[in-house]
Each structure stands twice: as structure tokens, then as C-alpha cells.
């Protein structure tokens, strides 16, 4: 029993270290499979040794030494394998590491940034990118990743194997893009982290509205990125956005798991620490020329978090920020959110005009929140028949059960008062 407890606590240490170890080994050997295999072996060895010998002073250094030894054993056993790695090694030696070592964490450089850029390489499908990032950087097991995306483990395993095969055979490099490439590549990495978060924040399907495990993983990934790239303002903006949005988590569902809309939320349940941390990050993210989309969205989230009530929210400022966002990143989805804020500033009629203009947009076809937003504005205008029709349209499109229940409740209130 005691040994099991020791093993569990050791395992907790590994959540963070697994990603670092894997990144170091992948950078060293240029091969994810070998990195993965030896990381697991090193952790297995630690699970056996540490409960008996005690946790070493520098756990990561111990793990790295052990993993390296295992890798060298493997290379000695298998000549053909070694030859292939030797070729890879020549290539990876060429790329000098650009990432500064993280001060105070042993004296081992943090190579996770390379791994981020490999896992989120645009030559991989979006699905593969999120799967690899959760698997290798968040340290989730394949069954955990499968559960997170509600697909069978075998399907997820296959997806990961295929992605790894492409990394190896098309030779997607383990490297951090140079300063000239970074602006083109970084948004891809941030997008993966953001997608993990949004899936956790409002599940696209299933019985739960929230999948907090995924939201937590996304925040953890954003924190790692922020530590590695502290001066990249969009990284700061993304972390701020996730914290400021996630701060409302406890108030977003009721005891039965039902959805509680922003206007009905008990604001006392909001996480003040997360809000404070997010607010501190928003400032540097917004300061300076060329503000990015995550920073602007974080500023919007901050304004919501700072409001004492839905009605007293600074809607004019929110509309202004959506205007900025529309300029940086014109999209019907942003326009939809702006219309909702506009309705709060200028009244439902004004919002409705904009929503009606958006109805034809391709990107919003099949998106339940467009008819849902129309329905709410029509309801507030007392146009009950049209509102009911819009709620029905939204019900046809919604993916998760709690959101469906909210829409159904609104519809009932209209048709059966």
C-alpha cells in the first residue's frame, strides 16, 4: 500500500518531466520512437528504484542519464537502427539549439519548444497536431488522448502512429524556426493549444458541457510555452485568454451539470486568482505595436471578468475591442460575437440587423450559436414566433447535451409560458 503511494507520487513528478525528457531525447537522437521508448524505460526504472533508494537530488538529470544509457544499449544491440540514427544525428547536429536554458532547473536545457514545433508542424493534420501535443508535451497516455477526443483508443493509437511515421519518413525536423520564420509558425502552435482548450471549454459533442481535464492541459501547455517564449506577446495573450476564460468555469455549470449562461452566473464563484493572473498578463500582451488576436480576446475576457453584473459590463469597450479583432482577423465568428455585444450596447434591434447579414456566411453554416443568438434577440424584442423558430434551428445543430437543454428550456418558455 505504502509502496503504491510512493509510486503514485513519483508518477506525479513525471507528468512535467516526461515532456522535458522526451524533448531532450528527441532532440538528441532525432527520433520520437526511441525517445518515447527510453523515456518510458527510464521512468519505469525510477518507479522501481526511487521508492527504495529515495528520490535523487536532480530527478530529471537522473532520468536523462538513465534514458541515455538505455538508448545507447538499444543502439548497440541494433546496428541497422544505429546507422539510421547516425544519419539523423548528422542533420540534427547542424541545427544549433536556439532555446536558452531555463534557469534554476537543474542545468539541463529545455528542448520542449523544438518538440512543440515538430508536433504542431503544418505538414501534419490538425487532428494529428493536437493528438501529438497532448501525447508528447502534456504527457497524456494514448487512451487518455483518445478519451479526451471521444474516439476509440485504437483509432487514436493509429492516428499517432501515422503522424510519427510522417515525422520520420518525410523528416519533419526537430528545430525551433528562426526569427524570420517564427511569425509564420508560432500561430500554428498557439492554435493547437487554443483548440485543446476550446474542446475542454465547450465540448463539441457528448453529455458534458465542460471537459475540465482538457482545459487544464491547455493552460499547462500555454504556461510551458510562456516560460519558453516570455517575450512573444501572443503567447502571453493566449495564456491570459485561457486563464480569464477558465476563471468562470465553476459558475458555468449548475450542480446537475446544466449550462448557466453568463447573464445568470453567480459571479462570486469566479476564480479571483485566475482573473488576477490573467489581468497581469493582458497588459504586456496588449502593450506595443501590432497587437495580436489572442491579446485582444484576452482583453475582452478581462472586461467580462471585471464586471460586477452582466448589465453593467463595459459593452462599448467590448464592441470597440471586437472592432479591433475584426480588423486583425476578419471572420464571421468574430462578427457574430461583436453583434451580440452590439445588441447589449445599442439594443437587440441593432444586433439583429448584423446577425441577419451574417446568416449567409459559409463559415457559420451548421453553427448553432448563430440561430441561438438570433433567437435570444428576437425573444428580447418580444417576437416570440420568430424566436421559437430560431431556437428550433439552433436545436437542430447543437452538439452537447447541456447546451441543448438550455435551448430547449428557452423554447419551452416561449411556446408554453
Amino acid at each position, binding site marked *: 500500500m505504502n509502496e503504491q503511494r510512493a509510486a503514485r507520487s513519483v508518477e506525479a513528478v513525471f507528468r512535467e518531466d516526461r515532456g522535458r525528457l522526451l524533448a531532450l531525447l528527441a532532440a538528441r537522437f532525432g527520433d520520437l520512437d526511441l525517445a518515447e521508448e527510453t523515456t518510458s524505460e527510464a521512468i519505469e526504472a525510477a518507479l522501481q528504484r526511487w521508492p527504495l533508494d529515495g528520490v535523487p537530488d536532480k530527478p530529471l538529470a537522473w532520468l536523462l542519464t538513465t534514458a541515455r544509457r538505455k538508448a545507447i544499449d538499444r543502439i548497440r544491440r541494433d546496428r541497422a537502427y544505429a546507422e539510421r540514427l547516425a544519419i539523423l544525428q548528422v542533420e540534427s547536429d547542424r541545427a544549433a539549439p536556439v532555446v536558452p536554458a531555463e534557469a534554476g532547473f537543474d542545468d539541463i536545457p529545455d528542448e520542449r519548444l523544438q518538440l512543440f514545433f515538430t508536433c504542431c508542424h503544418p505538414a501534419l493534420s490538425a487532428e494529428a497536431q493536437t493528438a501529438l501535443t497532448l501525447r508528447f508535451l502534456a504527457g497524456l497516455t494514448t487512451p487518455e488522448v483518445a478519451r479526451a477526443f471521444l474516439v476509440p483508443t485504437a483509432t487514436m493509437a493509429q492516428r499517432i502512429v501515422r503522424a510519427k511515421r510522417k515525422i520520420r519518413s518525410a523528416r519533419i*525536423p526537430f528545430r525551433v524556426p528562426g526569427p524570420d520564420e517564427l511569425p509564420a509558425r508560432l500561430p500554428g502552435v498557439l492554435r493547437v493549444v487554443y483548440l485543446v482548450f476550446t474542446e475542454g471549454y465547450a465540448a463539441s459533442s457528448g453529455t458534458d458541457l465542460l471537459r475540465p481535464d482538457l482545459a487544464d492541459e491547455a493552460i499547462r501547455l500555454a504556461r510551458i510555452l510562456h516560460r519558453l517564449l516570455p517575450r512573444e506577446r501572443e503567447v502571453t495573450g493566449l495564456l491570459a485568454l485561457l486563464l480569464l476564460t477558465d476563471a468562470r468555469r465553476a459558475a458555468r455549470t449548475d450542480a446537475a451539470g446544466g449550462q448557466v449562461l453568463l447573464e445568470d452566473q453567480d459571479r462570486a464563484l469566479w476564480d479571483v486568482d485566475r482573473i488576477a493572473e490573467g489581468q497581469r498578463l493582458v497588459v504586456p500582451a496588449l502593450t506595443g505595436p501590432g497587437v495580436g488576436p489572442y491579446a485582444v480576446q484576452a482583453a475582452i475576457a478581462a472586461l467580462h471578468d471585471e464586471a460586477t453584473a452582466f448589465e453593467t459590463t463595459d459593452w462599448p469597450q467590448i464592441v470597440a475591442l471586437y472592432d479591433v479583432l475584426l480588423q486583425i482577423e476578419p471572420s464571421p465568428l468574430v462578427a457574430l460575437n461583436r453583434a451580440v455585444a452590439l445588441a447589449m450596447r445599442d439594443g437587440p434591434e441593432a444586433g439583429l440587423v448584423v446577425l441577419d447579414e451574417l446568416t449567409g456566411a459559409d463559415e457559420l453554416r451548421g453553427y448553432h450559436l448563430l440561430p441561438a443568438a438570433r433567437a435570444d434577440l428576437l425573444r428580447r424584442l418580444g417576437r416570440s414566433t420568430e424566436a421559437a423558430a430560431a431556437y428550433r434551428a439552433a436545436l437542430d445543430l447543437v452538439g452537447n447535451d447541456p447546451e441543448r437543454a438550455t435551448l430547449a428550456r428557452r423554447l419551452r418558455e416561449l411556446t408554453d409560458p
Partner: protein
Amino acid sequence: MKYLLLINTLSPDSTEERPAEGPTVEDFMAFDKAVSDAGVKLDGNALDITTATTVHVRVNGERVVTDGPFAETREIVGGYYLIDVPDLDAALDWAARCPGARFGTVEVRTVWEPVQP
């Protein structure tokens, strides 16, 4: 590592509207010079896009020869480069510099190598 860049261009039969300013011969010559000077070009040619002939041998050994590319496609391979560069990023960089990428697409393929046991 060897990569094949397949330069896809709008098929001559396509009814789609062609961009007003397609790539010029000079554009391609400049690219060819760059790729040769960098020492990464193993081979490369422009292909005649109007004279494709397709061959298929049936199970019974019968040879079937047809005019045109295999399938009615929007795009056709109009040229190729075989290059030797360290990794996919380097290959993608060359593909992006190819004038064909601005007016069509460039597909980057790796040369298959047997998997080591």
C-alpha cells in the same frame, strides 16, 4: 534526403479561369538557377502538358493506351524537381520559392526508402 517537388498547374482542359499573370519563363529560369546554385538540384524538368498518354495493362495482359492524363483532373503535373536537402522544412522552403506555387500548387513527396528492420 531526397524530395520530389511536383509542380501542379491548371489542366489545359480545365474550364476554370486562369490567373491573368501566370508565371513567366524568366521566373522559372531564375528559380532553376537558384536551386542549381544552391547545389541541391538532382534533376528537374518542365513537362509538356498537352501530350500526356496513359497506359494500363489489364489482368489478361491487354495493353490499354489512352490519350490524356489518367483521370479528368483540375490540375496536371507541369514539371518537377528532384532535390536533396536535410529535412522537410528545407524542401518546403524550395517548394514555396518555386513560381509554380504561386499560380498552382507544389506537392512535396519523399522518395520511398525501405524501412530498416
